[in-house]
């Protein structure tokens, strides 16, 4: 079965909705948008079924894109077991979110624009996942970044939304700069962009001698991944990206695009295995991000911001898993996270929808009775992300933590503390939202079936998704580390989860005065965390202001206005001056012209005479 239709369906949907959507009725837009993703999903299912076990990668050559000397870039799609997992996540979760968006966006303007962007995103994401070389992967990588920008800035009449879109795009440029350098280095080292060739060449290298350039490649790949997957130090765009519509937050900024960095790192596992230093850096960055973002999530009051920091934190877990060598556990967490975090965002969207647009947790409360279906599904997601036993989150997170323990125990302990914090902040948000008394003024109403049906599906997946044994499926590609740890180590994350939920229950249900007292007694620390460690302000002072100032004074006033405009205007003035002099020759008198002709002929004759008549 061919692979090319998988991304082509959403592309066709994008073209139809993008070009003609303005004149189409909503029913047609819905059919095209959802139908194209549905076709894509079905095609993936049938293609994977016909491809069978996928012991070796299946590659499909479409056409040669760039051919220059020894450099060849093919547009080839390739499916192996890793791609299969990602394809199922992207099209499956993408389909559910498209269906949900039909309900969520029904009252919004720019309906066709939203769905055409969303379909374009699906196209680029599928290209990214299916790509069989680094350049094509980069095409998808940039494409999803573009769609992220377009959708974050979807409410383009609002200043904060366009700012958030710009921030997402510009911060990602930094990461992409690193990624493109990594691709250049890969070409220099391996003379190929093709995954199969690069990795088979890398496999042959001994760990000791190759560490220099391979480490550089891996660190630069990591820079790219930190941009796309919102890790320290480039995570700052993701919380702001919540300015986009909630289905976008769920699809792009939770389930699929932000996991592209993890996917890329796992795809390059062979390279990373030859660069132990880079692996350690990945693990440390992941762990630091997980802890740091979770601590910020503890005190946020905007329900989407809580989940945004939670996403950053969970992505940190994935990088921790990758960094300690548990690649398949990282991908496993990508999948389970796609289920429960998409659900959290969609549920939050359903709450926001019910409250007529209010996102502030302080204005919620007591919604359990008013929107019971949303509440039930959100609690399913909550127990999954908190990692309670037998949920999907437990299965993947514990694998990561066990691998971390085998690598370095302190990573395990910090990860377990973070797990407790995760349980606390998620249930803090849920308790503030659903228990207690209603503090808002809007009359909440349950969302329509088109919205809660995807929630229900995702809730089931969040609970039982852990039984899909991804590490086992990926075993032939990515060997599983059998971390032999004691049962105490296995059980402690559960305890941390229960403890976090219990604390949240005590703080926000039993005696709601405790958080305020704690906040005032820990004044300085609380303000520090509440203001997100002032990272945005530090970046603003250290990077943004100098760059803007430098651009304004040096690049604009100096180079642009002085040099470029000066030389352009100078050429114009020169031509004008010369023309002013030459104009005097155009007297309009025939005899003057004739005299000039004679004068010129005489000059030519003299010149010929001087050089000797050409002899």
């Amino acid at each position, binding site marked *: 079965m061919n692979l090319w239709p998988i991304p082509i369906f959403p592309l066709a949907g994008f073209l139809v909705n993008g070009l003609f959507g303005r004149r189409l009725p909503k029913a047609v837009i819905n059919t095209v948008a959802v139908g194209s993703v549905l076709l894509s999903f079905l095609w993936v299912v049938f293609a994977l079924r016909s491809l069978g076990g996928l012991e070796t990668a299946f590659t499909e050559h479409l056409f040669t894109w760039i051919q220059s000397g020894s450099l060849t870039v093919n547009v080839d799609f390739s499916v192996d077991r890793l791609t299969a997992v990602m394809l199922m996540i992207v099209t499956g979760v993408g389909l559910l979110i498209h269906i949900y968006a039909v309900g969520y966006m029904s009252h919004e303007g720019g309906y066709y624009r939203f769905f055409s962007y969303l379909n374009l995103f699906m196209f680029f994401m599928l290209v990214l996942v299916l790509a069989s070389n680094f350049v094509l992967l980069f095409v998808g990588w940039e494409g999803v970044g573009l769609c992220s920008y377009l959708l974050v800035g979807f409410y383009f009449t609002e200043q904060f939304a366009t700012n958030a879109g710009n921030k997402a795009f510009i911060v990602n440029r930094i990461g992409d700069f690193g990624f493109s350098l990594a691709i250049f280095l890969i070409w220099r080292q391996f003379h190929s962009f093709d995954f199969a060739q690069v990795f088979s060449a890398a496999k042959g290298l001994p760990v000791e001698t190759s560490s220099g350039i391979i480490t550089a490649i891996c660190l630069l790949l990591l820079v790219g991944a930190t941009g796309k997957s919102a890790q320290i130090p480039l995570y700052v765009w993701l919380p702001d990206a919540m300015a986009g519509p909630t289905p976008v937050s769920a699809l792009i900024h939770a389930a699929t695009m932000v996991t592209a960095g993890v996917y890329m790192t796992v795809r390059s596992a062979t390279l990373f295995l030859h660069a132990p230093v880079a692996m350690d850096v990945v693990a440390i960055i992941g762990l630091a991000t997980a802890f740091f973002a979770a601590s910020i999530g503890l005190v946020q009051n905007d329900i989407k911001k809580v989940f945004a920091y939670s996403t950053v934190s969970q992505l940190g877990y994935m990088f921790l898993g990758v960094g300690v060598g548990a690649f398949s556990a990282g991908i496993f967490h990508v999948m389970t996270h796609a289920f429960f975090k998409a659900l959290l965002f969609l549920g939050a969207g359903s709450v926001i929808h019910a409250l007529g647009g209010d996102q502030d947790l302080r204005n919620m409360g007591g919604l359990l009775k008013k929107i019971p279906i949303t509440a039930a599904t959100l609690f399913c997601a909550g127990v999954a992300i908190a990692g309670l036993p037998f949920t999907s989150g437990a299965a993947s997170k514990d694998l990561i933590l066990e691998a971390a323990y085998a690598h370095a125990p302190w990573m395990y302990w910090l990860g377990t503390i973070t797990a407790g914090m995760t349980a606390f902040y998620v249930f803090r948000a849920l308790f503030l939202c659903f228990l207690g008394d209603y503090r808002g003024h809007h009359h909440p109403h349950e969302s329509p079936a088109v919205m809660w049906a995807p929630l229900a599906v995702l809730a089931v997946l969040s609970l039982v998704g852990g039984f899909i044994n991804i590490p086992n499926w990926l075993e032939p590609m990515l060997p599983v580390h059998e971390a032999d740890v004691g049962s105490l180590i296995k059980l402690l994350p559960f305890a941390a989860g229960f403890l976090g939920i219990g604390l949240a229950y005590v703080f926000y249900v039993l005696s709601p005065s405790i958080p305020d007292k704690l906040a005032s007694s820990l004044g300085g620390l609380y303000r520090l965390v509440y203001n997100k460690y002032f990272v945005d302000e530090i970046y603003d002072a250290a990077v943004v202001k100098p760059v803007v100032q430098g651009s304004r004074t040096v690049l604009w006033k100096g180079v642009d206005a002085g040099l470029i405009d000066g030389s352009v205007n100078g050429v114009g003035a020169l031509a004008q001056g010369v023309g002013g002099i030459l104009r005097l020759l155009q007297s*309009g*008198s*025939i*005899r003057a012209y*004739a*005299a000039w002709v*004679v004068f010129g002929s005489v000059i030519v004759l003299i010149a010929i005479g001087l050089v000797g008549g050409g002899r």
Partner: protein
Amino acid sequence: MSGVPLNWYLILSAILFCLGIAGFLYRRNIITIFMSIELMLNGVNLSFVTFSYKFKQVDGHIFTFFVMVVAAAEAAVGLAIILTVFKNRQTLQVDDINSMKN
């Protein structure tokens, strides 16, 4: 012919050409200017014929015929223009016929 050196022909040709130039530059009457042009053409013709004779080649003669044909055609067109100009302007002074200027 054998008594007349080649240079004399060429000098005569140059004198004719220079007279033509001088007439073209200094005379005001269109008809005189026109005749000056003819004079220049004939000066050139003379040098063509001279070289053709000297090098025993027919090219110069052919050129001369072409020049004469073109000059005849030019005379026909030019004189027609001059007649029309005179009809419209009642003058043949080139300095007065400058409405194309500016």
